[in-house]
């Protein structure tokens, strides 16, 4: 038998290799006219295609087309083409040959950039002082009216002894006189005549108000340049810098930072000399910066280890019977939510379990009166997810009041209860506002959805009638859902522009990473400044679900809206290297962060905020909760914190629930 098989295979192989190679190729081909295309923006043309047989005879005089970049070059199926944007793009012609072979042909289309038609200097002064540097601003436009930033610009000066533009496009003024600066881009140029006058500044006064100073304190230095008569020269530019002599100078990193407007913050204790310079005039001021000294001991009071499933969010509340209770969700499990008696945080125990049709109960919330609970569902077996409303008035015997899936089938990841309404984050797309005043018969009263391309939403938090949502690429978004005068918001905010059934967007702020995962309003008790604190979530190194630790990324962003909702500024961050943030909570001027692999972090956010708070000695305490019997052993993935009645309760994805207490410390800060 083996010989027969061997012989047959050999014969077959010979038969195959004797087949002429041409017989393996259909040789039908698409021919395009024109075969190459070079166009300008807005040009139109028609491509014709035909199929030739192996002898070069036309067997079909039409083919179909599509564009791989239809927003840049559009083409109809019969070949009518229009160039929309500059660049190089591909058109594909396709057809079936008479023998049913699939034929394609690629046509490259080069669309030239329109010629540059104009360059203009933008808001450049006519006069500058000697020995100053000024960034040059200009604008280039092309024949189609597009602003162009990909054009090389050359600068020249008619008198470079007076002033010239350096390689960083800054005007360097050297001595009094007048010069003409010319900017040339392609075939066009623009001129700017500037007069350099002698810098009148002969002295500078440099003051600050804050004393004593601790690490993390923002000190406002005010420099006033003056002429020889002692009169202030208000239009003279001032540059600030500093040198430091830290107490520990053994290879320290950056000791602090100073902003162009003179705001300074020190990371390390020590002596700092701030310098203000204008022209040839220089002034110095030396300050002593002390350690912030806010650290406190953090006691692990108790823990409730969950070993068989990942734990998600938590909520702690005072029950109607006066006892203290907590609810935790589960992730990637069997749709369970656990109820805990945490009246004695040293001995937390599960007192009831609710199981719903879901794989993940990501979020859990309890109403202010402690009677109604809401849990979210993802991965329902019937793909009808939504929310489940619970009667938690007896946490030992929790019952399901209703399941609400209307318009929510795609999965609810997070929810928030506010004034008998549930804000349910719906399918990562929008949030639905649901009236649960009759919890047996919930009704959706409105929806809020962004209209940006590719928008999404992750979480929402509501305080005083403003909903703060976190929206990945779209960042933090504030929406008026019936704001009250107590709303923590910018001073210029008009309250009550929206309502629960008519949510109105107030403002937003996004940042380049697109990692925005949480948002929390914060009105500083110490400064009255209003911030929205944004938290990241990112897994550049993946998420280990079964074993091994995970190393996420991301940090906390402090965004200030002091000039109104339409003028956000990111002013500070709290970033631990090689770790990633998750949920957080603010109480008074203290920030509690579940920092995934870096555990619980408690941070002093009093005073003005600037720079990376992590480096400023603002961390009050930390604990990294790990347990050998965790869902993943000895690997912290701290999920959510909640300060409650002097304790801090924390859920950890890998180990369950933890209770902490800050110990009184004799080493309080100097304030």
């Amino acid at each position, binding site marked *: 038998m083996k010989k027969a098989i061997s012989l047959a295979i050999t014969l077959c192989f010979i*038969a195959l290799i004797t*087949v002429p190679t041409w017989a393996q190729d259909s040789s039908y081909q698409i021919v395009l006219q024109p075969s190459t295309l070079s166009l300008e923006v807005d040009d139109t043309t028609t491509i014709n295609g035909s199929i030739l047989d192996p002898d070069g005879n036309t067997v079909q005089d039409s083919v179909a087309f599509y564009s791989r970049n239809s927003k840049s070059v559009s083409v109809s199926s019969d070949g009518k083409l229009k160039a929309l944007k500059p660049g190089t793009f591909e058109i594909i012609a396709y057809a079936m040959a008479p023998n049913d072979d699939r034929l394609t042909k690629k046509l490259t289309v080069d669309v030239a950039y329109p010629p540059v038609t104009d360059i203009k200097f933008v808001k450049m002064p006519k006069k500058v002082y000697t020995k100053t540097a000024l960034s040059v601003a200009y604008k280039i436009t092309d024949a189609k009216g597009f602003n162009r930033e990909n054009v090389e610009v050359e600068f020249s000066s008619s008198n470079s002894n007076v002033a010239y533009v350096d390689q960083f496009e800054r005007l360097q003024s050297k001595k009094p006189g007048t010069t003409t600066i010319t900017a040339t881009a392609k075939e066009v140029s623009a001129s700017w005549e500037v007069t350099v006058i002698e810098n009148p500044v002969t002295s500078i006064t440099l003051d600050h108000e804050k004393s004593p100073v601790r690490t993390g304190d923002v000190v406002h230095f005010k420099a006033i340049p003056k002429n020889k008569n002692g009169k202030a020269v208000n239009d003279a530019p001032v540059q600030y810098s500093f040198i430091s002599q830290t107490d520990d100078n053994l290879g320290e990193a950056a000791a602090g930072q100073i902003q162009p407007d003179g705001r300074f913050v020190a990371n390390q204790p020590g002596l700092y000399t701030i310098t203000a310079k204008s022209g040839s005039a220089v002034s110095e001021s030396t300050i002593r910066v002390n350690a912030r000294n806010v650290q406190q001991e953090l006691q692990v009071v108790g823990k409730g280890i969950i070993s068989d499933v990942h734990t998600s969010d938590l909520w702690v509340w005072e029950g109607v019977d006066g006892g203290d209770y907590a609810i935790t969700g589960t992730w*990637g499990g069997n749709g369970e939510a656990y109820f805990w008696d945490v009246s004695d945080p040293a001995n937390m125990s599960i007192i009831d379990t609710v199981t719903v049709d879901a794989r993940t109960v990501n979020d859990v919330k309890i109403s202010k009166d402690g009677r109604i609970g809401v849990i979210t569902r993802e991965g329902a*077996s019937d793909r009808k997810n939504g929310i489940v409303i619970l009667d938690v008035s007896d946490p030992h015997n929790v019952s399901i009041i209703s399941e609400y899936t209307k318009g929510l089938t795609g999965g609810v990841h997070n929810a928030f209860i506010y004034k008998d309404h549930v804000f349910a984050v719906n*399918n990562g797309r929008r949030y639905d506002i649901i009236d649960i005043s009759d919890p047996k018969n919930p009704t959706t009263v409105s929806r809020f959805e962004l209209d940006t391309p590719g*928008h999404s939403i992750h979480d929402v938090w509501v305080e005083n009638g403003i909903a703060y949502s976190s929206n990945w690429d779209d960042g933090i978004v504030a929406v008026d859902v019936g704001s009250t005068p107590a709303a923590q918001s910018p001073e210029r905010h008009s309250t009550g522009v929206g309502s629960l059934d008519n949510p109105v967007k107030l403002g937003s702020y996004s940042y380049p990473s697109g990692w925005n995962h949480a948002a929390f309003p914060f009105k500083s008790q110490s400064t009255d400044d209003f911030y929205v604190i944004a938290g990241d979530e990112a897994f550049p190194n993946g998420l280990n679900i079964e074993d091994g630790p995970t190393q996420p990324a991301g940090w906390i962003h402090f965004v200030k809206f002091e000039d109104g909702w339409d003028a956000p500024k990111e002013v500070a961050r709290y970033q631990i290297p090689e770790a990633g943030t998750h949920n957080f909570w603010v109480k008074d001027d203290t920030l509690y962060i579940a920092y995934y692999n870096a555990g619980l972090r408690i941070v002093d956010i009093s005073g003005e905020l600037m720079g990376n708070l992590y480096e400023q000695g603002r961390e009050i305490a930390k604990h990294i909760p790990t347990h050998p019997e965790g869902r993943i052993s000895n690997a912290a993935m701290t999920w959510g914190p909640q300060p409650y009645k002097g304790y801090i309760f924390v859920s950890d994805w890998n180990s369950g629930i933890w209770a902490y207490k800050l110990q009184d410390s004799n080493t309080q800060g100097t304030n």
Partner: protein
Amino acid sequence: MGTIISLIVPIITFSQNNVTIMKLIKYSSIFVGIITILVNPLCAQTYHAYVAAESDDQVYQIAFNAETEEGSVSDIIPVGQYPTETEGPHGINVGLKGEYWYLSIAHGTPYGWLYKFETGSNKFIDRTELGMFPASLETSKATGLLYVVNFNLHGDMEPSTVSVVDPEAMSVIKNIKTGIMPHGSRITGNGKFQYHVSMMTDELMEINTTNMKLSRRLSLSQKDDNLPRVKPTWADPHPQKNLVYVAGNGSDEIIEVDTDNWKILRRFEAGKAPYNLEVSNNGKHLVASYKGEAATGIWDLESGEEVAKVANSRKVTHGVSITPDSKYAFISVEGIGGQAGSVDVINLNTQERADVIEVGKQAGGIIYWKTTSK
């Protein structure tokens, strides 16, 4: 051996004018046929497939040894962008040459995505954004383009689209407007027509793949009250005949449609809530998943009889993929809650379950990839 045959067949097609060559090829083909018959029983065939675990955001590469009738997991591929959220990998298919597999991710931002992976290495290649809740997908042999239905399961009741994707550039080149909740799409063997169903309008839809237009639509309902009663969830064209089979999820029936005359030929009373179905390559059997019955139905298409109903390993039967030799059907079974999903491998000759392969939660989209021999 399949590879050799696949080389011979196009040569035969092309060389019809050349008698000498034809003879040579004819005799070669006979040899190949003989060898196929001789060798097949001696070789241990292993079938390879991919299955998506919708609630675990994972795709499982599985293998089934036909000699031992034992299955195994070859690889687990995490998919998606947001690891702590459920993004829902749903539809899955392998490209024309078997070099890549394609996956629809249901929940995006807010639109879903089409992902492209290399087969075997399972390396991520690229992705492109589609419509709301993209579901089943397939590449056309005629155009080389991918056609993905945007199911929009969780959206408002409004017409959705079929996205046409250039799989090389991974860019959407057209969105074809179709019915409400389009689902269950498959393409004819020659690649010229794509069939899918419009679940909430009780229609079978036909797309001309070349001009990328909706060419015909057929009402599947027996009533004129505009209420979705059939709730069709899948359509699969017969591999040889001009017939399309539709799973009537709401009416518990399988519907046979004549595409020449564009009319319904037969209605088969099926198990509860048929969801996916596939006709075997030899045209003999139709295998349907009964989602509401935790069972799989095997139908003899000639007689129109259900010849076997095989109980599945757990509740919520989902997808069907039959090996090209028509010997085995791979059935994905979702499970409920924390229960793991599974793939039941059914021997179509014995019409019994040969093995159960444990996979991730809510196993759904499933597709045969390739057969290897020892």
